[in-house]
């Protein structure tokens, strides 16, 4: 069986004005793993995920997602959780789910219900009244309720309370099914590192270090959190 790489980027670059977000980035990832996309703010994590999701295009270079060019066909098979808060404040939690579900053929109502419960979200609550942590949980439900081949989660742990953070990591582990792939971007390594099979450390739009999480722990005799500190020292 020939395995189609999950993701291949060949020399992709992207600028926003004078800021270079991605700089001739080469990356190849195999499917069936949870990848930690790590790096400080401004290292290019969000830009890379947006390009993979087909929401923006690189200025140069080639991208293949699930063997496809980024676009509608690829987007139908991937679930993207944006960093920004994209929820309608006036909808209820259940209303938000009902609304979002209409966009996706692979939406699983059963999974959505199970996730709501696991996340302690009240379906009748109005989005505008939810705390930041609760809104982060809801965003994750929206992404994980789909039966996608690839999940792109952009900073799902940023700026939220420890309890919500722990619950979000648990939900990712719980929902992950054999053969699926997840890319989780974060600059908070400590709380999520156990969940990662592989990691890519980005710096200034380039790959600084990449490898299997367990192999990096063995070779450097330290946690990914500690390695993160060393890489960006």
């Amino acid at each position, binding site marked *: 069986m020939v395995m189609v790489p999950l993701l291949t980027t060949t020399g992709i670059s992207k600028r926003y004005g004078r800021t270079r977000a991605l700089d001739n980035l080469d990356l190849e990832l195999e499917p069936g793993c949870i990848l930690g996309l790590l790096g400080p703010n401004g290292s290019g994590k969000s830009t890379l995920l947006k390009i993979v999701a087909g929401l923006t295009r690189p200025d140069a270079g080639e991208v293949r997602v699930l063997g496809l060019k980024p676009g509608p066909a690829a987007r139908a098979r991937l679930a993207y959780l944006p960093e920004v808060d994209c929820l309608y404040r006036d909808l209820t939690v259940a209303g938000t789910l009902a609304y979002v579900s209409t966009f996706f053929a692979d939406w699983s109502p059963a999974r959505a219900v199970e996730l709501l419960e696991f996340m302690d979200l009240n379906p009748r609550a109005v989005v505008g009244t939810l705390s930041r942590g609760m809104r982060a949980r809801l965003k994750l439900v929206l992404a994980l309720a789909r039966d996608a081949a690839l999940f792109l989660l952009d900073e799902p742990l940023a700026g939220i309370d420890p309890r919500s953070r722990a619950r979000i990591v648990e939900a990712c*582990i719980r929902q992950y099914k054999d053969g699926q792939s997840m890319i989780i971007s974060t600059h908070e390594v400590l709380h999520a590192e*156990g969940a*990662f*099979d592989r990691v890519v450390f980005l710096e200034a739009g380039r790959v600084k270090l990449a490898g299997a*999480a367990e192999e990096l*722990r*063995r070779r450097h005799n*330290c*946690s990914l959190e*500690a390695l993160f500190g060393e890489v960006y020292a």
Partner: protein
Amino acid sequence: MIRIDLSQPIYQQIMDGITKKVVRGELVPGDQIPSQREMAQLLRVSPNTVQRAYRDLEALGVVHTLRGQGTFIRAAPDLIGSLREEMLRRAVTGFAREMRSLACGREDILRALEDEIKRGDDGDGTSSDDDRHQ
């Protein structure tokens, strides 16, 4: 519950954690252990890591997984004996290496060991290595 030290490979710690419970007799043949998914959630680690640990434990004959029923301890008594021996050897190797790095000779090592054993016998035997794992 297995405590995970994130500075070391996790899969090895899962294997050791379960093996240790078998060696101590906390888990006996026929006992069910958490499913891979449950274990991954419990420890907050990748399901792929747990899968690898369980697969290797199965290859060693420590556990077996029955489709649709779960994962069970199956280690035979002679296997438990050799697992115990292997873990003991590993602990001693680490201890000996540390002693050598302190330039301790046979006399020092044996005296320190005797003292430690005596202390353990006098106390209530709380110094299991799980307590100082972190």
